[in-house]
């Protein structure tokens, strides 16, 4: 995809000098990152690198030990609980498994934020919900419960729910995990279409290198608590950094070791029963 937007666009989200330790483990260390407005940015990296942590910092579920997380100029980590609630009303978040409410129908799931946060008449809510469900191709499933739909469809309903309040910022946490190729293709197209149609900023946490090329304007790779690459996906292939190469080519061994750290093979086999 040609990089028509490049990094000249104004940043919507800015991480400045962000460090975070969780459970005694350093996840992010003095991380700096600026995510531009109106584009789709993919966040990639090995498992446990802190991709989802990055999303949780943007949503205000986590606070950094040091540094600031700025969204449209507002420091999310300094917001009061009340201000954080107002801020979250402008966010759309698609969680890994969709997180639909199993005791509500698809229609009621999508209607929930509208009923909670607006005083719109039920007739208007109905129109908005059906419109959102139509966007994700599931208007006909409005009356069904999440258990009656496939995993991919559940995630599309969750996407419709995330879009219900017309957010300016959409966050997707591994939207393609466990999807078949058809569902993956649908999700891919939807994320891109919705971003362009509504002029929002989208951040997609994913492992899927191939899909990122079709989806994102730029990709950011995180490893060892830092951003090790931030560029349009097609140029990442040429990045000389060994970790970027290992990730992009899916090599089993490299800077991220195949074997879990432990004693040497000789020590384990020759030194008797240690386990």
């Amino acid at each position: 995809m040609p990089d028509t937007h490049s990094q000249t666009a104004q940043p919507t989200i800015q991480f400045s000098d962000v460090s975070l330790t969780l459970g005694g483990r350093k996840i992010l260390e003095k991380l700096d990152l600026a995510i531009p407005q109106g584009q789709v940015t993919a966040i990639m990296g090995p498992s446990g690198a802190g991709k989802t942590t990055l999303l949780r910092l943007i949503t205000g579920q986590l606070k950094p030990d040091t540094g600031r997380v700025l969204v449209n100029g507002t420091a999310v980590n300094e917001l009061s609980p009340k201000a954080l609630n107002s801020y979250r009303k402008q966010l759309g978040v698609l969680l890994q498994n969709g997180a639909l409410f199993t005791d509500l129908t698809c229609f009621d799931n999508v209607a929930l934020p509208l009923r909670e946060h607006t005083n719109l008449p039920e007739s208007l809510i109905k129109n908005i919900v059906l419109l959102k469900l139509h966007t994700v191709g599931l208007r006909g499933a409005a009356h069904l419960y999440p258990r009656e739909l496939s995993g991919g469809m559940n995630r599309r309903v969750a996407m419709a729910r995330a879009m219900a309040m017309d957010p300016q910022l959409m966050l997707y946490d591994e939207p393609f995990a466990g999807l078949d190729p058809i569902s993956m293709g649908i999700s891919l197209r939807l994320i891109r279409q919705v971003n362009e149609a509504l002029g929002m900023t989208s951040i997609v946490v994913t492992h899927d290198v191939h899909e990122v090329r079709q989806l994102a304007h730029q990709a950011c790779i995180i490893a060892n608590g830092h951003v090790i690459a931030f560029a349009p996906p097609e140029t990442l292939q040429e990045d000389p950094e060994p970790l970027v190469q290992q990730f992009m080519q899916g090599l089993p061994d490299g800077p991220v070791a195949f074997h879990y750290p432990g004693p040497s093979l000789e020590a384990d086999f020759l030194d008797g029963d240690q386990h």
Partner: protein
Amino acid sequence: MIKPLQEMGKAVVFLGQAISRMRLTSLQFGETLRQIYYAGARSLVIIVTCGFFVGLVLTLQTYDTLTRFGAADAASTVLALSLFRELGPVLTAILFAGRAGTSITAEIGLMRATEQLDALDLMAIDPMERIVQPRLIAGLIAVPALVIIFNMMALLGGVFFAVFVMGNDPMSFWGNMQNSVELGRDFLHGLGKSIGFGFLAAWLAVYFGWSAKATSEGVALATTQTVIATAISVLVLDFVLSAFML
């Protein structure tokens, strides 16, 4: 010793948060009614069945014992007093914990595991308002209602045994009971306790679900903890309340 105390402290803080965030304008009446149905109405089968058999066996044992002292007439009084003051509220609360408490814990624990609580938070909908408060209020209302039904069924069981099995006069059975049982001192005493037990059972069920680890093992452990903690707490609270009320 420290761990249970820490857990108790956390449960108290959790309850404080749930109550402090309660606003009349945001009370979810529809959801609360639904929870009363799930926790209360759906517990009716176990409450009705257990109540009837508790009444049967209690009357059987009481008749057998009192007959040795020539005081078989007092059986209905013993039955009513032990039911209204102790057995009704305590057994109902423990049965409620086993039937509805575990279900509340498992439901909230699974909501945690499947990120539904996170989703509410991220939609700026307070999970305390939407999930916790309706279940607390439902427990407060459902348990006293279930206690009344349990007592009623136990009395029916008692009458059935005394009249149809032992061949006693039903008028004397009811008459002796009416002469000795007082509304305020006995019936309302037990009903007052049941409000406390209902709140306790719902609180512990919601708390253990809320704090469950987001794994299948975590949810299983949380449901077990609900039953154990509720049974012990109800019996301790029963002693404390009885000591103050008598």
